[in-house]
């Protein structure tokens, strides 16, 4: 069913993900500006507002990097570079239509393994500069990870269980008639929540929180800051994009070609996540931890049980 894309796709993938991340950030900026300053008067103003992240990226490229006393530069650089690397490596198993850069038999576990590299990346970025605020941000992401990771793992395991395979292509193929989102709604909802948490963004933005002067990114300036923030947007796009093959039927759909359906569905998921960021305040982590362990984990376990019973009776 699913096939591997030609070799050049591997070279194109990072740029495609970056472009998607830039478009998402642009849409987010346009929505934020409309909320703060009213609707855009002209198409030109709208374009200018949407290009704000690009202008910021150019500004950061030429900005003087920041140095701190007794910093562990090697670890900081490793952490900053690891974040976009992890996002792109996780994106390698994302199918565009029915083709991905690689479709290993354990693609779902690969995705999960790559996204937890972000745990190491954010902590290292926080630790490196030898600054209390950035260290606080790094520690916050680990606390957040402990709250979201277990329900997240159970949710993606449920999708794999429904397809009886860890291969992403197989999961897509099994959703030809019925999307998994429709008969595993709890797993889908938990996946969307953890996709936001994974990219430490919106209601789960504590690791870069304003109350800690920018948290893990507090001491980053210039290109390093650009790489970290760009990596975070890329991670968000990849996490949102993975909801499509897992729960939304991948490239399946009438009339349009598979790759276009994938893009449309990814855009829809990203639109929901942008709306969530506008609608919800930051979640207090100790409350979310309690919610995750007492509500989400039992809920996803029940969901997995229901799916397992259906699969056994198939």
């Amino acid at each position, binding site marked *: 069913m699913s096939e591997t894309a030609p070799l050049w796709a591997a070279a194109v993938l990072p740029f495609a993900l970056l472009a998607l991340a830039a478009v998402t950030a642009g849409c987010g900026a346009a929505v934020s500006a409309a909320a703060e300053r009213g609707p855009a008067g002209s198409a030109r103003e709208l374009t200018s507002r949407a290009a704000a992240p690009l202008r910021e990226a150019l500004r950061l490229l030429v900005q003087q990097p920041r140095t701190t006393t007794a910093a562990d530069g090697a670890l900081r650089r490793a952490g900053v570079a690891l974040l976009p690397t992890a996002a792109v490596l996780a994106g390698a198993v994302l199918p565009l239509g029915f083709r991905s850069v690689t479709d290993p038999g354990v693609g779902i576990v690969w995705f*999960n393994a790559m996204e937890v590299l972000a745990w190491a990346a954010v902590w290292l970025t926080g630790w490196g500069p030898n600054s209390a605020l950035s260290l606080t941000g790094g520690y916050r992401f680990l606390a957040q*990870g402990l709250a979201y990771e277990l329900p997240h793992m159970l949710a993606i395991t449920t999708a794999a269980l429904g397809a009886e395979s860890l291969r992403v292509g197989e999961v897509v193929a099994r959703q030809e008639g019925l999307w998994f989102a429709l008969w595993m709604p709890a797993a889908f909802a938990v996946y969307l929540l953890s996709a936001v948490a994974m990219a430490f963004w919106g209601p789960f933005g504590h690791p870069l929180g304003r109350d800690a002067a920018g948290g893990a990114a507090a001491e980053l300036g210039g290109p390093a800051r650009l790489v970290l923030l760009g990596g975070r947007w890329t991670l968000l796009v990849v996490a949102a994009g993975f909801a499509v093959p897992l729960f939304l039927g991948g490239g399946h759909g009438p009339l349009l070609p598979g790759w276009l359906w994938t893009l449309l569905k990814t855009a829809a998921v990203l639109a929901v996540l942008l709306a969530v960021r506008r609608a919800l305040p930051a979640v207090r982590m100790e409350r979310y931890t*309690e919610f995750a362990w007492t509500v989400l984990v039992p809920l996803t376990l029940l969901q997995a049980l229901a799916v397992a019973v259906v699969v056994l009776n198939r």
Partner: protein
Amino acid sequence: MLEHALFWVLAVLAAAAGVMVFRFDSMARATYALLTSLLCAGGVVMLLGLDYLGVVILLMMTVEMALMAVFMVMYMMNPAGLMPMSMLHNTKGAAVLCGAVFAALAAGILLAPWPARRGRPPADPTHDLGMSLMGPHMLTMMTLGMALFATIVGTVVLATRRGRYDRFGDDLKARRPDDPVPGGGRR
């Protein structure tokens, strides 16, 4: 050819990062050097064709090392390497021991009469691994899992200083627990 090159790169990186664990004097660096070494080991396992085991090694070790770094930094006397400190103990004894073990293992590799491969590798090693781990031993594994989990819960209950009477009052009737840090379970 590519597999051989990849093996040597991963093997040398794993060994070098493993050595650096003992050379670094910062807990954070040592932890992440160990993670690098373990990730390379996971890559070697994937090269052997055991994709699932290899990827699970990447997943588990990353989470484990990320959390371990926190505890190491919390409890070690020299977390960031700001004060000179050696993390080596019994250097001479350890060197002799390691040398002997290495020589024995290397001799084993070179001298053992390796059998020729019989049969073909399975189409889905993950499935075969699951069957051989779990197939006839499902009950054993389930019982073991429950026993381990009960041990963890029991240990935490015994070790914690604050009991339910501290949290919910002498008559256990308080609706919200009286915790120093909010976020504990309610009833």
